[in-house]
């Protein structure tokens, strides 16, 4: 009994880590650039495939594939911002449409290129099982959670302690004044999209060995991460973090105690309840 609960707790944290990682990038992009960046769902898929091919075709080690995934995700995200969002700046309506079109495009492009079939990304960490007093868990799972926390600390440091972070937060609060103070808005956008793409890619490459690599893999994590942004409060780093883990836990325990079939439906209910009772989100400003 205790073992099951512990195992589910780890599962919840693993999934939660993925949601949080994507949501942190999304909340920055959504609050600063005013785009709910659906394209991150496609970036997630492409990063995972990049990792997959690095390991299976080029026979590089898994750790190296993480680097390749991050480079792929970051470049893709930055390019999308430059080519597709920037020409439409000032019309959030069109940007949102383009974001969704990109999501649609990347998912179908992946199906076209690599067929809908699921692929396995092998990781040496998955084979290492750790034992804690009769409770066993794979090193891969521990790595996902640990890596996520390390990244959150790093991102928090970047946002709170560095000059760049101050510039990002200034832009988030008041873009006009920030521009007047000499902050280059294009540069800030590039940075947040790079950060978003990087976090999404890491999430994808870390979790891929636990599940599978397939073209539609980005859809659900993306939708959940968007809910996490609303649930945690728009633009709130801590909200994205806490909200992601909370949703991960709700889903895993909800799957056991409520319904497996609606594991992916809880987020929708949370979204509706948030909109009704706390439209600003848990850590929102208003």
């Amino acid at each position: 009994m205790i073992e099951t609960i512990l195992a589910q707790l780890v599962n919840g944290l693993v999934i939660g880590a993925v949601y949080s990682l994507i949501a942190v990038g999304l909340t920055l992009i959504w609050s600063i650039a005013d785009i709910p960046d659906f394209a991150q769902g496609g970036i997630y898929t492409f990063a995972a495939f990049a990792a997959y091919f690095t390991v299976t075709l080029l026979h590089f080690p898994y750790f190296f594939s993480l680097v390749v995934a991050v480079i792929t995700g970051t470049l893709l995200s930055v390019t999308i911002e430059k080519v597709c969002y920037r020409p439409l700046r000032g019309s959030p309506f069109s940007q949102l449409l383009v974001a969704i079109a990109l999501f649609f495009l990347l998912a179908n492009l992946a199906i076209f290129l690599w067929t809908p079939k699921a692929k396995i990304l092998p990781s040496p960490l998955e084979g290492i099982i750790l034992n804690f007093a009769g409770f066993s868990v794979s090193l891969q799972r521990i790595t996902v959670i640990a890596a996520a926390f390390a990244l959150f600390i790093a991102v928090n440091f970047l946002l709170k302690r560095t000059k760049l972070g101050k510039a990002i937060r200034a832009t988030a609060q008041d873009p006009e004044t920030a521009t007047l103070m000499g902050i280059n808005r294009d540069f800030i956008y590039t940075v947040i999209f790079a950060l978003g793409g990087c976090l999404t890619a890491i999430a994808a490459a870390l979790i891929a060995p636990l599940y599978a690599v397939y073209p539609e893999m980005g859809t659900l994590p993306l939708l959940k991460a968007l809910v996490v942004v609303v649930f945690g409060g728009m633009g709130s780093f801590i909200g994205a973090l806490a909200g992601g883990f909370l949703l991960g836990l709700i889903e895993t325990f909800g799957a056991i105690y409520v319904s497996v079939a609606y594991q992916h439906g809880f987020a929708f209910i949370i979204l509706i309840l948030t909109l009704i009772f706390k439209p600003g989100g848990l850590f929102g400003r208003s």
Partner: protein
Amino acid sequence: MLKITHFLKSKKTWFYILISLLLIALPFMVSEYITYVVVLTLFYAMIVSSYDLLLGYAGQLSFCQGAFYGIGAYASALFSIKAGFPVYLSIPLSVVITALVAAGVGYPALRLRGAYFAVTTFFLAHFVYLIFLNEVWLTNGPLGLRGIKPLEALGGIDFSSTTNYYYLVLVCFAASIYILYRTANSNLGKMFISVREDEDLAESFGINTSLYKLVAFVISALVAGIAGGLFAHFFRLLHPSTFTWLTSEMVVIMTLVGGIGTIFGPLIGASVVMFILEFLRFAPELRFVIWAVALIIILIYEPRGLVGLVERIRRVKR
């Protein structure tokens, strides 16, 4: 009298008369397969033009027209299978259900500004798909819902023939386009436009913007529900995969390809997209890729869609 002569002199009038005659004569001119594709196109045309009322007039982006299409289809099929209702009753009931779902989701999501509504509707589309897929006791899940009754014969007309059903759908289509067009040009349509143009200003003029957004959303859902009901008793087999978020995406693409805010533009969009999709049947994923790229290019270079493109070409010619 002057009005009538003016009416007859207008090129547009003749264009519409020509199109109407073509549509009426269609089953006698083309194969049953083409008629069949046209029926499907008419369903999409209904969904797309009602979506235009929401997007082009009230200025609200939603991504769940496919879900409402699905709710209308499944609800009507289930009313007729499980409750044994005649189709003439099951379709109206399914439309009521579609409208209720739209109101229930739209009410909390439309009170907020920004992309909250769009994101919520995207999720709704997925949630509805999950229900179709998982509630096996009700929807038969991934195996699909079979044995849906055709529309009962009325006055000796047998609606299980493609041609006869085509005329029924054509009538429903014409009626819904007419109603949508009238709505768009009525006082209600003007209220929608005020919401699209500037919500704060509309609100300060005493316009209940949340209400009008909700009304536009429910109307768009309602027409999609009718199309869904008609689809269920035409195709007579429902599968969850027909109603994934990709379907909702195609609706958005058709609307934008046609050009928003015109009710008629999206009709052209629906026809063009549907027929090209049919031609590209041999490469199913590639056609979605092509349309997605087309949409992005349209958004960046010609946001008014095909209608805008035609206007642009005309201007160059002059």
